[in-house]
């Protein structure tokens, strides 16, 4: 498994933060050349064959230009682009070039390095494919001058292009071949279309190698066939045919040489069972000197033992021997028992050994580097055995490398939820793209439970068809805890702000309820006194004993009590009080509906009622600046929703509408604006339109309104999270859409569309997929 070798990186960056990564990249054992702009980059690329080009330019169009230049000049290097989310969209669109890796800023160094490793790996993989496909289609000169025969076919078998090598081989002109069916003009009648070798091409960018001989072409040929893809669509195939007649001849020559040891460039020595030299070829002299006594007639020392062992066991054995001038040979002791001698075949392995030593050195350096990376880093080979387990993996998981190296990962006793990892590995194996898993539960070394976020990258394992894996992970427990606390705090803050408004809404009716009740109490006192005098009066009348002073007393008391006023005001006080009670009841009911504490599953919600509830709950937020107009389609059915979250979305949109209007009308002294909310149902969708008469959304920020943390509001009036959260709630949790129409100076309408049949399960999966794609 080769992850990092002596690779050459070109960094095109105009900001210091990224430039400073160069040192670290160098420390990783790569060569990193840094240039500040496109011109310098292009100059460098002409001189050096880079593996990876890391681009971080502040101007989006410069990045695009550079990508196009890399593409057009057929440079094989893998570009990596670092950019902000918004720039990245522009780059992907403008460059129409999918082959680059990208990193969304801000990104931790580990992400940059992981992407770098991945790119280097891809570059290695690319080198395995004959590069000619790109050269041939894009580089006319090379195509024309290419010594091998090249044929490009349309998927229907028509010949699109041929190079001069093939016309000269065929003895015809281009025009004889172009647009003809390949199996007719090249293969002749000998092949049916389905058996035509040109009908087969390698899959997935891999070349298919076939060999054939043709008597009419007088020789043996090797053909590399590659499917040409446009995206995932097969558009045809490209075939490169090389004359291997010469190679065949050379192979035969080597076979012949084996029969004549004297001409063999490798040592061949024959020694008798007793160690006496029987024969050596010229190349064997150096080896013989090293393994025999001074007379050079007898093999001595441990070499003699090797001869004896080979004879007695009748089995070949191997050894290495150092000869003069630091040459190193590998020897094979091959016994021929019936003839009572041993043939010793030598092979000069000096260069190979040196390369191995270098590789080993590089490998140990890589291991040191990987060990010191601040993430959990685990290497698996194609069989799922642990090949690498860095320091941080030991620290984070509390499992030392000697407990796991060489074992199947599933057999390792690691305190994590292996089920999740195993699913991730399976996905990577089938899709061959990296997978990200964000919430693997594990037990930290201090026995507390934690959360691990990992990315599983497939890596080419040279010894197998299946990929190996590189698992890059991080303990995100503390971050998650903070995030949860933050979300909770935000929620409480929102509830607190709403609560103050609701308190005001309730306090107003409570004020006049109290005043009226107190008034009615006083009225009752006065009236009951009057009533008792009336009883006296009645009794006196019954007894026909009416005295003028009783009437006078009654009259004066009625005047004191202001009886006319009471008769007029009591009914009003009662009806206003009932109004007030109704209002308080409505608010309290709306509060209960709104928050839906404890409901975390989807339940049937009537959208009209949900809107009414939200309007009531946040009345204090809009009533000073806007009138509320509702136009509900009466027969809208209930749909499955998360009520708490849906209310939150409606609240965000209504409060935003109020703020937009407030920006125009100020404190409302010059007249209020209007918020209108409409609901409609077409067969499959419920449409909610929330319109304001505010100033509209300026064109230049229209694309950003759903971005997290984007806000135009003053500090304290909005966190910039509202619309981002709303967007997530509607699209991800309810499968709906949220869009807006805006008219400068006239207002904005937000449109929520909810499918009538929303899946009852909550779905975080879409979000996860999105993250995986970014990774």
């Amino acid at each position, binding site marked *: 498994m080769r992850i990092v070798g002596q690779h050459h990186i070109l960094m095109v960056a105009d900001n210091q933060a990224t430039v400073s990564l160069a040192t670290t990249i160098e420390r990783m054992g790569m060569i990193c050349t840094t240039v500040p702009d496109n011109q310098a980059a292009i100059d460098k690329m002409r001189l050096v064959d880079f593996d990876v080009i890391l681009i971080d330019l502040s101007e989006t169009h410069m990045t695009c230009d550079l990508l196009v230049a890399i593409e057009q000049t057929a440079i094989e290097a893998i570009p990596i682009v670092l950019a902000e989310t918004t720039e990245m969209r522009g780059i992907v669109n403008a460059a129409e070039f999918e082959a680059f890796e990208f990193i969304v800023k801000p990104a931790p160094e580990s992400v940059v390095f992981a992407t770098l490793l991945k790119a280097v790996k891809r570059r290695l993989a690319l080198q395995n494919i004959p590069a000619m496909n790109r050269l041939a289609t894009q580089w006319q000169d090379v195509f024309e001058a290419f010594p091998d025969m090249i044929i490009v076919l349309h998927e229907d078998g028509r010949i699109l292009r041929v190079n001069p090598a093939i016309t000269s081989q065929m003895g015809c002109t281009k025009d004889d071949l172009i647009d003809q069916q390949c199996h007719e003009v090249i293969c002749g009648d000998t092949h049916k279309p389905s058996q035509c070798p040109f009908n087969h091409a390698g899959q997935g960018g891999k070349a298919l190698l076939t060999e054939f001989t043709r008597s009419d072409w007088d020789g043996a040929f090797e053909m590399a066939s590659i499917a040409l893809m446009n995206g995932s669509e097969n558009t045809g195939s490209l075939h490169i045919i090389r004359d291997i007649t010469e190679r065949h001849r050379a192979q035969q020559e080597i076979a012949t040489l084996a029969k004549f040891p004297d001409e063999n460039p490798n040592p061949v020595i024959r020694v008798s069972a007793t160690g006496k030299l029987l024969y050596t070829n010229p190349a064997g002299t150096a080896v013989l000197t090293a393994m025999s006594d001074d007379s050079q007639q007898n093999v001595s020392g441990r070499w003699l033992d090797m001869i004896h062992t080979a004879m007695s066991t009748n089995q070949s054995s191997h050894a290495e021997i150092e000869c003069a001038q630091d040459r190193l040979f590998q020897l094979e002791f091959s016994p021929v028992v019936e003839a009572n001698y041993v043939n010793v075949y030598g092979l000069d392995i000096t260069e190979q050994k040196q390369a191995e030593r270098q590789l080993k050195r590089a490998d140990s350096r890589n291991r040191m580097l990987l060990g010191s990376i601040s993430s959990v880093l685990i290497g698996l080979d194609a069989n799922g055995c642990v090949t690498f387990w860095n320091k941080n993996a030991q620290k984070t998981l509390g499992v030392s490398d000697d407990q796991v190296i060489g074992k199947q990962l599933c057999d390792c006793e690691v305190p994590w939820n292996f089920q999740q990892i195993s699913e991730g590995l399976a996905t990577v194996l089938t899709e061959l793209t990296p997978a990200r898993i964000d919430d693997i539960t594990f037990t930290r070394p201090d026995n507390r439970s934690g959360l691990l976020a990992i990315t599983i990258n497939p890596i080419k394992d040279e010894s197998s068809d299946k990929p190996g894996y590189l698992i890059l992970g991080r303990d995100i427990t503390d971050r998650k805890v903070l995030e949860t606390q933050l979300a909770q705090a935000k929620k409480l803050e929102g509830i607190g702000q709403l609560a*103050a408004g609701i308190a*005001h809404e309730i306090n107003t009716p409570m004020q006049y309820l*109290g005043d009226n009740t107190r*008034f009615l109490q006083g009225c009752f006192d006065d009236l009951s006194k009057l009533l008792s005098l009336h009883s006296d009066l009645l009794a006196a009348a019954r007894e026909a004993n009416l005295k003028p002073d009783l009437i006078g007393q009654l009259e004066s008391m009625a005047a004191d009590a202001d009886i006319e006023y009471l008769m007029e005001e009591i009914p009003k006080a009662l009806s206003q009080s009932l*109004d007030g009670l109704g209002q308080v009841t409505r608010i309290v009911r709306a509060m209960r509906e709104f928050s839906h504490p404890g409901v975390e599953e989807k339940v049937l919600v009537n959208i009209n009622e949900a809107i009414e509830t939200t309007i009531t709950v946040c009345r204090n937020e809009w009533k*000073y*600046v806007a009138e509320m107009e509702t136009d509900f389609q009466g027969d809208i059915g209930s749909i499955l929703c998360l009520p708490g979250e849906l209310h939150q979305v409606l609240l965000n949109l209504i409060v935003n509408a109020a703020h937009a209007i407030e920006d125009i009308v100020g404190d409302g002294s010059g007249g209020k604006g209007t918020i209108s909310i409409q609901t409609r149902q077409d067969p499959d969708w419920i449409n909610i339109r929330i319109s304001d008469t505010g100033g509209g959304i300026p064109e230049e920020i229209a694309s950003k309104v759903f971005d997290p943390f984007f806000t135009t509001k003053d500090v304290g009036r909005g966190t910039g999270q509202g619309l981002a959260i709303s967007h997530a709630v509607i699209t991800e949790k309810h499968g709906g859409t949220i869009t807006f129409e805006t008219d400068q100076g006239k207002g904005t309408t937000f449109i929520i569309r909810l499918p009538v049949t929303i899946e009852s399960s909550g779905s975080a999966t879409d979000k996860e997929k999105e993250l995986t794609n970014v990774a």
Partner: protein
Amino acid sequence: MSPKLSILFVDDEPRILTGLRRMLHSMRNEFDMSLAPGGLEALQILDSQTFDLILSDMRMPGMDGVALLGEVRQRHPHMIRIALSGQASKETVLTSVGLAHQYLAKPCDADGLKATLLRLSDLQNLVESTELRKIIAALPTVPALPSNYEKLKAESESDDPSITTMAEIVQSDPGLAARVTQLVSTAFFARPHPAPSPYDGTVFLGMDVLKAIVTDASAFTPFDDEAVLQLPLQVISGHSLHVALCAKAIAQAENVETDLVSHAFTAGLLHDIGKFVFASQFTSKYQSLLTSSFEAGAIVTDRNELDAFGATHWQVGAFLLSLWGLPEPIIKAVELHHTPKTSDCCQFSPLTAVHVADAIVNEIDSTNTSSVTVGLDMAYLDRSGLADKTGLWGEIAREALDKESKSV
């Protein structure tokens, strides 16, 4: 009987207005009531008719309460301004510090509102001069000693401000303490129990509120006029603090409720606050009054103050603190600390503590003994059965002052 108090109620919710009018219908002989559905309407009514008091909602469309009360303070400075709001937050109070004399929260209790209005109605008897009443009503704040104000400001702006340090500064300055006590007494805050001293009140308001208002000139302001600084403000302030400490020690010794102990301290600190009003509003007049008394070798008497300003310092102090809605026992102690016998109460109260402490501190300052011979209203003390306590209280007061001087 005092003339009817004319009140203008302002609210954008008509049912609140009619409710208030109905509730106060039984008081129609005491109050004249008018209703205005908004700020602009209120100003129109005020242009054509004179009112004693305005009681306004704070959050209204168009002209809101803050704007309305600001206009009223400017155009009709004699008026008593009360905020009645459902927006129960510290922030709302902060926007109207110095604008509203009192803050009431919706829903307000009917008896409480009636009592408040009746007390304010009586106020007109306390200070007869309309001109003086106008000046006091228009006063946004009572200035603090410059040194105390600067210390408070510096602490609030320091890297690591301490609320207890700020509380200590507040409780040594009558101007700062009056403001804090007013804010803590407002119905907008969940009022702490027992009633807090200026120190506890500062801690209760908290660092955020203090920081927000410390540089707000309608909340806190220092004496900064050249002429004012010639006056013996330090002496008055020092005397007030001594009386506060002694009154508190005496109240503690009497084992009365915690409320009364902190009221005794606050009342002691504020008992001469009227003198600060004279100093800030009638600087040269007050200067010449002090000078002439000094030259005559006499102290400034109530009669001198009445002649010069139309009211005594205790009348002005009690008027101001009533306007600001401070607790009744504090106001009584300030109003009657020279003449406790006119009180109809016969029990030990903050008034008793402040009256006795004032006499003892004066005695100690002039003769350096704690045996009080003059200045005590023996008739009042006899009536209350406390006459024999004066010796003991003298000792307690001296101890308290010794402790204070040692700690300083």
